[in-house]
């Protein structure tokens, strides 16, 4: 299949898909679907798609809500705090322990990430308000978990609607328990996706964390912070190890395996290293403005991007660090080459359809390409225009771009553009597997991982090989089926 024919298939698939929508929805969706071309400089955003707009009603969007963005992503992984799901019981239950934010600690004693805390709203709380209950809840938490470092209040839908003043309650209880209580108004109906939740959560860090001081950790010229790594399956650890090897001191890790102290010490970094741009660019920009801390984006998926990123990071420091970066690369390169030698022949030319959230629809492209695989479709659940413009630089060939794609579109695209593997989330997984297509979950690494860094890439390569070359996909045809 030459690039032209691929492009025309992609374009016609897109047209066909739109036809099924009623008029209004069709117009709307047309703005969010496109075919991205690497050469096309005129495209402001990859494929010319619009993003961060309301979801069309009545479709099976894969998007989450602001609460999911704040509690599930940004705040939830901060390990030595309790994060209260404030409102009815559901959100808290569904969001428990799904994201594999690895951490080290004694759960229920000094760390709390995999636990569930909710004010479990009943009808009377809706009618009379839940501020009193929240106050009591915070006192109870402080009594039962004396080592807790602070509490965050993650608002669910009803809180904003019934007009509860969690800001005031937080202020009052901060004094009461003498620990920070941080209100986060991340009600699920706010914004169009989880994205606003990230922003709100970042603002809460700005307003309530930076106002207090962390422990004294001294200062070196090599102090950096990892920003926007949630330590899924231990990703941040596999990244951190490289930064340390190259002579940097990682004084804070946001927010996978993070402690409140690390967040507080964030502003002491000399450079912020931003991995998930979407979820944490806000607080990075704030630190730049307020504390003069520069930030750079990096990408630790796949050896090529990791080499590039290590050099880019090192270039911000002195010759010593730059030499170290070369040493680190020289040390791991043979291992990475051996991984590629082993897996590339098995994966070369395989076509990938991606659909994920914050950074992965573009960040993982390089890792696939290192393995000789090609991305023929990608898109984000909750990106903004700046994510798509960044994507333009990553794609290597014509690629279908779908913003806020729903189940119907993904299935239809898949049937038309025929990938060899789909890499998306758990809601999508079994749909594609039933179609006989290899699939990997790219939010949770399908309970494998880590995928970041050099150690992670070996696992990534192994997993993709496992998915694509597993014998299980060959069993669909029964011996009695006609040839």
């Amino acid at each position, binding site marked *: 299949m030459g690039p032209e024919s691929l492009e025309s298939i992609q374009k016609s698939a897109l047209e066909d898909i739109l036809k099924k*929508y*009623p008029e209004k929805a069709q117009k709307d969706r047309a703005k969010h679907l496109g075919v991205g071309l690497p050469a096309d400089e005129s495209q402001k955003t990859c494929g010319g798609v619009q993003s961060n707009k309301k*979801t*069309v*009603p*009545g*479709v099976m969007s*894969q998007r*989450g*809500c602001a609460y999911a963005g704040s509690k599930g992503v940004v705040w939830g992984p901060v390990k030595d705090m309790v994060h*209260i799901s404030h*409102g*009815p*019981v*559901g959100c808290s*239950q*569904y969001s428990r322990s799904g994201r594999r934010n690895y951490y080290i*600690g*004694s*759960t229920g*004693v000094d760390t709390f990430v995999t*636990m569930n805390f*909710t004010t*479990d709203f*009943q*009808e009377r709380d809706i009618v009379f308000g839940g501020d009193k*209950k929240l106050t009591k*809840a915070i006192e*109870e938490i402080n009594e*039962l978990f004396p*080592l807790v470092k602070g509490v965050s209040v993650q608002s669910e839908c*009803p809180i904003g*609607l019934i007009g509860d003043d969690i800001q005031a309650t937080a202020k009052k209880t901060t004094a009461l328990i003498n620990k920070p209580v941080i209100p986060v108004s991340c009600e*699920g*109906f*706010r914004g*169009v996706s989880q994205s606003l939740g990230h922003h709100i959560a970042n603002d809460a860090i700005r307003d309530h964390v930076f106002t207090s001081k962390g*422990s004294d950790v001294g200062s070196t010229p090599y102090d950096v912070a990892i920003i926007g790594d949630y330590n899924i*399956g*231990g990703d941040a650890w596999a990244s951190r*190890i490289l930064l*340390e090897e190259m002579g940097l*001191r*990682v*004084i804070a890790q946001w927010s996978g*395996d993070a*402690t*409140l102290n690390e967040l507080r010490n964030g502003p002491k970094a000399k450079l912020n290293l931003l991995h998930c741009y979407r979820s944490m660019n806000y607080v990075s920009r704030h630190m730049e403005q307020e504390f003069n801390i520069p930030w750079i984006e990096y990408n630790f998926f796949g050896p090529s991007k990791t080499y590039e990123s290590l050099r880019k990071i090192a270039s911000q420091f002195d010759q010593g660090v730059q030499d170290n970066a070369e040493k680190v690369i020289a040390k791991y390169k043979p291992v990475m080459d051996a991984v590629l030698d*082993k897996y590339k022949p098995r994966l070369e030319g395989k076509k990938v359809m991606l659909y994920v959230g914050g950074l992965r629809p573009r960040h993982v492209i390089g890792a696939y390409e290192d393995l000789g695989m090609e991305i023929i479709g990608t898109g984000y659940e909750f990106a903004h225009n700046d994510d798509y413009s960044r994507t333009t630089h990553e794609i290597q060939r014509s690629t279908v771009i779908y913003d806020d794609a729903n189940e119907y579109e993904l*299935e239809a695209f898949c049937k038309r553009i025929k990938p060899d593997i789909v890499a998306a989330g*758990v809601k*999508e997984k*079994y*749909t594609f597997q*039933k179609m*006989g297509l290899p699939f990997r979950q790219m939010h949770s690494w399908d309970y*494998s991982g*880590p995928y970041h860094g050099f150690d992670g890439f070996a*696992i990534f390569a*192994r997993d993709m090989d496992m998915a694509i070359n597993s014998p299980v996909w060959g069993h669909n045809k029964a011996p009695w089926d006609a040839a």
Partner: protein
Amino acid sequence: MQNPQKIVIGKDLFLQPEYDETFKNKKAFEDMPEVQKVKEIAEWTKSKEYCDLNFKREAITINQAKACQPLGAVMVALGFENTMPYVHGSHGCVAYFRTYFTRHFKEPTPCVSDSMTEDAAVFGGINNMKQGLQNCKALYEPEMIAVSTTCMAEVIGDDLNAFVDGAKTEGYLPEDYPVVFAHTPSFVGSHLTGYDNMLSETLKQLCKTISKDKKERLNIVPGFETYLGGIDEERELAEAFGIDAVVIPDHGEQWNTGAGEYKMFAGGTPIEEIKGACNAKAIVTMQPFTTPKTLKICKNKFKQQTFEARPIGLSGSDELVMFLKEFSGKDVPESIKRDRARLVDAMQDSYSYVHDKKFAIYGDPDFALGLAAFVIEMGGEVTHLLCNNAPEGWAEAARAVLDRSPAKDSSRVWAGKDLWHLRSLLFTEPVDYLIGNSYGKELERDTGVPLIRIGFPIFDRHHLHRYSIVGYKGGLNLLNWIVNKILDTIDSQTKEIAKTDFSYDLVR
């Protein structure tokens, strides 16, 4: 560093010495409490003092064992043929419902929402509803749409009846297109309340012609049944008596489809059958605490005979079979007699490992009662029976079940308590085994009590949901899981060489 010949994941990677170094480095910035202090507090959380403090809690729920209403409504909708569950509210909830079911069943879970945002919060969600219904029908071509609400829609007071009517009169949907709806506020009850609301409303809204002449037919309501094999088993039991049985709603196939092709909807009760459901002679529910409203409608409005079964374990299954016998007027068929005898035989083969063992059981109300009854039938002791979403009357019913046990004086009922309460209880009044869903794995880790995974959700083990836990055949599965976990535990405790391995018996 990875060895390309033997790539390691997770734990094996992080146990390598260089990671130890990284973890140590990180500690310098964490400002975590002193090791000694952590030990001290950890010990304290196991004490009676802590338990008392824990039980004084009034405001915070910790590690709950329940979910919110719309989840149950979605299950009901997926039990109707070619029906799309439609949740009126923001799409975040729906992402959660789909994820939650998908993680349990390892199957896709279709469900749409109408993606309400701030403007809907101010002006109401009518526009979302009109567009949403239209789009949903166009894209997924369901034969029916079943609408439930989220807490948001309930707080702003959206009126489903008016909205659905509006969507039809304004031409967004054909007038005769079936749309059923139920209000499912998440701050009332639990996922089971939502199940009952959606089911009772569907029957109310679809059963238009209620005739006095009832058909010789039996409606079976499986309830929030997460063991899909159970639905077939219930149907087969009735059919063995020659009964014309209809399962309402039947979600058994939806989450149990085969490989090769993806079809969004599978199985389910045909819509025509639901319309005529009111004219069946009787209805039997397998989860009475889950379906009070449904039963009430059937009894009062449809004038049907109602029967409350709970066919988990021997006596529960016996009661169901006796009802079926009476209903059909036929003798108990040989096949059922044989299955019962097999279960009893198995119980007699295995009882000695269960006898006198102490159990803590937690889960949804009917499930917890059924499991407790079965454990007691095997000679086990139920020290703690806990239900977080216990409806009114459950505590008394639980007491009655536990009172059948010789250990009744040391058996306790915990209505409305959560899994953090249970953690305390496992330290202060310990048991030998814990029965419950995957959330129990942290209790197992913290307290050392082995967890037998039965319940919902089961995220961390595969395929258990494909079996049955109801009826005599389901009883065999329960027995299998319980006894073999006990044997595994005994083995793991007796394998230390030259210390305990003389008891590491080959034959058990």
